[in-house]
């Protein structure tokens, strides 16, 4: 198997807040190879967006990496200086955001912004940058790229804007594309189209895609591998088919059971996972999920769970998930 393009190794990140710190990521490890789509799933507040932000070095001024490394083609980006990190963004690693409504500058036309995003290309004439922008808009499935180039962001529909945002992210042909809930703000038809588009682009460019979502349907459709996060930890990592057919972590099982699309018979109640996320400013000593877990024992509540490997390319963070 080829070397990973992007790998996160034992990353811990916390946010300084008034009166302490919140451990948003704890000992997170995962990797994504060229041409692979990695899904990061989990409920709100589990750290999946923090992880995406950390990968592109935009975690914010109050975020602090306390341990670990983020390697882009083997080079630890956390050890680079500000300017070097900035040069990687856009060119090596790019991001698509959740809300296409606000992802563009409202006072500049889409074309002007797509041309502007190519500021790294020294010596390339403006005409060529326009051509590249136009070409990329056509590739993301906008039928009239010339029209879109001249439009202001508010003159486009949500789906068109998300396509334009994807075009912007791919403009510099990054090795890794991070998509943070790219379809959450869109309706289901648009969602299907955008997923289809991402799949095509992956085949066309061979870039690695990291997609952050709470939508298991998106994961099933698009991803090769999945990392399930809970309370700032990756609790299970597996190839997508194995995850859905043979989930090992109780949290993964509960998450799949809660997916409305998977409920066979009509029911008056939506299944839910009882309880709530632990307080991350004071994480529990044992397994973070123990308080909500149906099979938790005393050991779970006091001893941190080991990472076990139930199969090739799989990992589960659980005492009870013996193969």
């Amino acid at each position, binding site marked *: 198997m080829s070397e990973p393009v992007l790998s996160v190794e034992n990353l811990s990140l916390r946010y300084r807040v008034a009166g302490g710190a919140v451990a948003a990521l704890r000992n997170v490890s995962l990797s994504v190879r060229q041409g692979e789509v990695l899904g990061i799933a989990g409920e709100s507040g589990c750290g999946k967006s923090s992880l995406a932000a950390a990968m592109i070095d935009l975690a914010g001024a109050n975020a602090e990496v306390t341990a670990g490394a983020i390697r882009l083609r083997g080079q630890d980006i956390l050890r680079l200086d500000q300017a070097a990190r900035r040069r990687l963004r856009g060119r090596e690693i790019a*991001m698509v955001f959740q809300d296409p409504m606000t992802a563009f500058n409202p006072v500049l036309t889409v074309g002007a912004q797509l041309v502007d995003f190519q500021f790294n290309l020294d010596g390339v004439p403006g005409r060529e940058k326009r051509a590249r922008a136009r070409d990329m808009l056509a590739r993301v499935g906008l039928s009239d790229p010339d029209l879109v180039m001249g439009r202001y962001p508010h003159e486009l529909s949500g789906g068109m804007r998300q396509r334009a945002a994807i075009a912007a992210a791919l403009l510099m042909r990054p090795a890794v594309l991070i998509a943070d809930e790219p379809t959450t703000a869109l309706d289901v038809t648009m969602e299907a189209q955008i997923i289809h588009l991402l799949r095509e682009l992956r085949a066309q460019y061979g870039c690695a895609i990291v997609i952050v979502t709470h939508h298991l349907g998106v994961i099933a459709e698009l991803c090769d591998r999945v990392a399930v996060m809970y309370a700032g930890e990756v609790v299970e990592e597996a190839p997508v088919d194995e995850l859905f057919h043979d989930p090992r972590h109780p949290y993964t099982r509960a998450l799949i059971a809660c997916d409305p699309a998977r409920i066979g018979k009509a029911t008056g109640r939506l299944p839910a996972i009882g309880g709530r996320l632990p307080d991350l400013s004071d994480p529990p000593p044992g397994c973070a999920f123990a308080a909500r877990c149906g099979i938790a024992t005393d050991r779970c509540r006091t001893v941190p769970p080991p990472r076990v490997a139930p199969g090739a390319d799989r990992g589960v963070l659980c005492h009870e998930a013996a193969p």
Partner: protein
Amino acid sequence: MSSGGRFRALRALLSDPMGALGLGLVLLFVVMALFAPWVAPADPIKLNVAEKFQPPSLAHLAGTDQLGRDLLSRIVYGARTALAIALTAVGLAGVGGLILGMIAGFGPRWLDAVLVLLFDSMSSLPMIMFALAVITIVGPGTGTLILVVVLVSIPAYARLIRAQTLALSGADFIVAERAMGASSARILFRHLLPNVVGPLLILLSMDVPVVIMLEAGLSYLNLGVRPPTPSWGNILYDGYTSIRAAPHMVVIAGLPLVLSTLGFTFLGEGLRDALDPRLRRRVAG
């Protein structure tokens, strides 16, 4: 911004009757001021005491004043004085406010705190009192007038720009810009600047008449432009002192003040609607 975008804004401004009227009035005064020697029928400071206090006639379209000077010529040259002072002062204050506001909104937090304290203490001073104090110290004159306006106006502009910058620097498209590897300078000048100048231009346009009135007011009090340089303020004062002998003088001196105030205000309001692409009516095709 593309040139097409700018023309679109101009079209939007002209399609609004108030905006078009405002632009027309402003252009009228600007032309008057720029081409005063050609527009004015006579020398504005040439005395002809034999023809003093004449009502409007063919020889003197707006009549003459207490020293027999042609009033229309004095009004035309007065436009030059008024606009030169108002545009210079507002322009300098606008640039100063823009720079300080962007520093406060985008720079380190401690600098923001210092600047905001400064703005607040400046704007707690009443404008006319502050103007009188500065004039007492520096002495009356055009330079003093501009200095006062710049000092008094900067805080309001800077605060507007600061608020806009602060609100925008957390916006998604700025984060997206960072995600593309943009430097702070690029974000400031390419993305924040065009987003904040619109509101500033509107405020500046609406403040021009305030400054014109301040200049006229101080000149009326003999604390602004020194005679015999024509100013709408000292023409108004001359008219007031000889209101019994020549009542036309106050009316003629007041008219440009009213019209220029309306013109700049309408223009400001028209600009507000035209410059915001989100408020702009969609142009088909």
